């Protein structure tokens, strides 16, 4: 099974090709089922590879499957090759698994959309790119996948491109990502220059011998790429806007998979990060926790159901980077997996709510929906408990691992992480109460704008509910992956150890776990008091609702001095570069025009020219050679 690792991205690629050729003919819903089937097939192959890896001993769990030689350029030899090791297969498992569930959900969600098959075309293309990113044996294949997911993100965010806000959001995502990609590219150049190879195995092995400044540079440049892709400060601003895309897109790309690519990259390059000077991980940890806190404060004041989840994603990604910066790579991956479960669940649940509310997204116009959508409400509540960090749901265990690592790094980071956990519990409870409890506020809204039908909100079809239930189940038991009680229960850590090492901690785990639980429950209690019992006024200041005016500041900068710079660059291109190129053309034309006058058509002129040539020739013979 290890030899067919290439099948994992091949299935969605085949799906992409088939839908490209026959999508319109297949239509709604066959195209969707085809895409889901392909993603599911990839999952099956991944599972097979997983079991095959398990059958090997821990040191031998690294297999490279080379498909073809991609860039054979002298000293730069890059293959299209896939690396199947615990880290990549873990990523593949949840990418393909959750991907399949979301494909299935989307078949129901996108039913009736005129561009149904195109949606699945892009989704499958995204799956291919993400799998390339994760399975890549070298930085260039990963970069190919990196750019691919960025492109698909753009295509899918602006899927409903008739809406100008959607089109703009797509462009914003793409451009912001590009800023980060610059960092990744520079990291690749540095890595190649230092080690002569782009292969992860080669680069990571050379980590021990390379100069510390080089390792630091590579690590920090990779982090810049991660900041763009995983929406950290200061490049997070594309993610809230990306909610313009259909909800399955938000669930798949902007919660479970693409945004985790940055964390994945840092874990892949963990030997380099370990070899870098100590301020590099510190920077990463600080950026992570700052982002987490920043985004959590903004989420408290959001009224759009998806925007809350978007800022929540930014915040949780900050947690993952906090873990990476604290050296606990396993904790980051663990949280990535559990976050994928519950965040996808929450997004899909919100999608079900939006779908049932006939595309109403403002939480102020919802309320008491648990009576009308019981399954959606139940699964959403599971997701809420998981993200809030209430034991024994999955989020508690992973968040706890991160907080433990943060405490080891610095108690300040731990305190900030705790405050963020408090806020997380607070705003998520707020969301649950506003949407599912309280009084039904949707009657007034319907009278107000006589909206999209007078039917009341309804539960979603089974095809959309099934993934919700599956994900809810995973959110409950997901913690079992890495229970901290003993070495045997820390399955994930042991599994990942050959790749990213083990993080041992001396600190007592139980007191920290208890404090974390108390904080979570406190957050929930506060929120219940404010929003359910109405014992206190809600604190939702304008500054938080506007995201600390960060977006506006950036826009003003880009529109002002930024615009001038762009205009200058455009002027330079049009005048200097184009002028140069066109100038060459004009020069040639002008010269040709002048030379053209020689062709007078007149025999005597031609004869004269011949005569002059003859004289010159004779002169050469006689004078230079001395005789005719």
């Amino acid at each position, binding site marked *: 099974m290890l030899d067919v690792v290439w099948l994992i991205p091949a299935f969605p690629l085949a799906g992409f090709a088939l839908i490209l050729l026959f999508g319109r003919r297949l239509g709604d819903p066959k195209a969707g089922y085809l895409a889901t089937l392909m993603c599911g097939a990839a999952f099956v192959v991944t599972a097979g590879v997983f079991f095959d890896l398990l059958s090997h001993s821990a040191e031998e769990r690294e297999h490279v499957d080379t498909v073809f030689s991609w860039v054979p350029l002298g000293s730069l030899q890059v293959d299209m090759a896939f690396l199947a090791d615990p880290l990549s297969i873990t990523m593949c498992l949840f990418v393909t698994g959750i991907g399949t569930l979301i494909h299935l959900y989307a078949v129901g969600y996108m039913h009736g959309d005129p561009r149904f098959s195109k949606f699945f075309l892009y989704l499958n293309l995204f799956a291919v790119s993400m799998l390339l990113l994760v399975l890549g044996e070298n930085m260039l294949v990963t970069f190919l996948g990196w750019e691919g997911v960025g492109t698909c993100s753009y295509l899918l965010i602006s899927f409903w491109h008739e809406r100008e806000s959607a089109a703009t959001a797509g462009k914003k995502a793409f451009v912001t990502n590009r800023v980060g990609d610059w960092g990744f590219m520079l990291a690749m150049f540095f890595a190649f220059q230092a080690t002569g190879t782009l292969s992860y195995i080669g680069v990571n092995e050379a980590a021990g011998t390379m100069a510390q400044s080089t390792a630091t540079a590579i690590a920090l440049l990779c982090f810049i790429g991660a900041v763009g892709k995983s929406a950290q400060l200061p490049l997070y601003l594309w993610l809230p806007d990306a909610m313009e895309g259909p909800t399955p897109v938000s669930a798949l790309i902007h919660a479970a998979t693409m945004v985790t690519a940055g964390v994945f990259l840092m874990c892949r390059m963990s030997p380099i990060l370990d070899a870098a000077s100590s301020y590099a991980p510190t920077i990463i940890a600080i950026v992570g926790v700052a982002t987490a806190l920043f985004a959590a404060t903004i989420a408290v004041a959001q009224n759009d159901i998806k925007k809350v989840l978007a800022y929540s994603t930014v915040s949780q990604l900050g947690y993952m980077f906090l873990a990476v910066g604290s050296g606990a790579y396993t904790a980051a991956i663990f949280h990535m997996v559990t976050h994928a479960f519950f965040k996808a669940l929450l997004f899909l649940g919100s999608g079900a709510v939006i779908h049932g509310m006939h595309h109403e997204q403002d939480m102020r116009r919802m309320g008491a929906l648990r009576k009308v959508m019981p399954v959606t409400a139940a699964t959403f509540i599971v997701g809420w408990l998981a993200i809030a960090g209430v034991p024994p749901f999955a989020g508690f265990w992973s968040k706890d691992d991160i907080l433990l690592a943060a405490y080891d790094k610095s108690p300040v980071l731990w305190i900030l992480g705790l405050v963020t956990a408090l806020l997380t519990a607070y705003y998520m409870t707020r969301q649950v109460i506003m949407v599912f409890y309280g009084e039904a506020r949707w009657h007034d809204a319907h009278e107000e704008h006589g909206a999209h039908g007078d039917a009341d909100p309804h539960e979603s079809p089974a095809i959309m509910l099934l993934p919700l239930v599956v994900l809810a189940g995973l959110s409950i038991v997901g913690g079992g992956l890495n229970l901290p009680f003993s070495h045997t229960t820390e399955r994930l850590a042991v599994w990942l150890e050959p790749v990213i090492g083990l993080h041992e901690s001396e600190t007592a785990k139980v007191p920290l776990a208890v404090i974390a639980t108390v904080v979570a429950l406190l957050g929930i209690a506060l929120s219940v008091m404010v929003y359910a019992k109405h014992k206190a006024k809600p604190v939702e200041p304008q500054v938080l609702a506007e995201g600390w005016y960060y977006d506006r500041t950036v826009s003003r900068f880009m529109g002002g001095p930024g615009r001038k710079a762009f205009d200058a660059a455009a002027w330079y291109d049009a005048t200097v570069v184009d002028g140069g190129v066109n100038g060459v053309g004009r020069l040639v034309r002008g010269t040709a025009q002048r030379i053209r006058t020689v062709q007078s058509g007149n025999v005597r002129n031609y004869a004269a020219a011949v005569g*002059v040539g003859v*004289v010159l020739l004779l002169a050469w013979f006689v004078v230079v050679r001395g005789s005719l």
Partner: protein
Amino acid sequence: MQLFVFICAGLMILAGAVGVVTRSHPVHAALSLILTLFGVAVLYVAQEAEFLAAVQVIVYAGAIVVLFLFVIMLLGVDKVEDLRVEPFRLQRKVAALVGGGVIGLIVFAAISSRDNIGQVPPAQSDAVAAVAVLNPHDSNIRSLARDLFSDHVLAFELTSVLLVIAVVGTVLLARRAPKSNAETST
């Protein structure tokens, strides 16, 4: 005696040449040409190339110039060329330069190598050794014929082909376009 012949023939040649170049009436120019050709024929005889002298008079002066005169008569070239006008300003200066250059350089070459005529550079001596051995008692025409029909017979045949082609081609070129009933000739 030789000198006298040379000088007379030379004068004829040069006078005829200058006449061709300067006479504005084409018929006068043709007659000057005949003068030149005749002078050249005289020099051929002086150089013991009698056959060629005969051919020169018969073919060149007798056929070619007659052809020229036919065409002049046929086309009725009455309007003579005005030699005082020259549309291209530089043309006469360039012509002078070219003419002077050519004459000067060749004369210079001829004079500076007058002692070396016939001396072949060592590299080519083998080729020259294959020169046909002349029987000094043969007449000019006999030795010419010997050379023509042995060493150059292929070229001889090809020139016959060339003549046929020239005749056929010219007949085609000079044909009037076929007229239909409705057209009038231009």
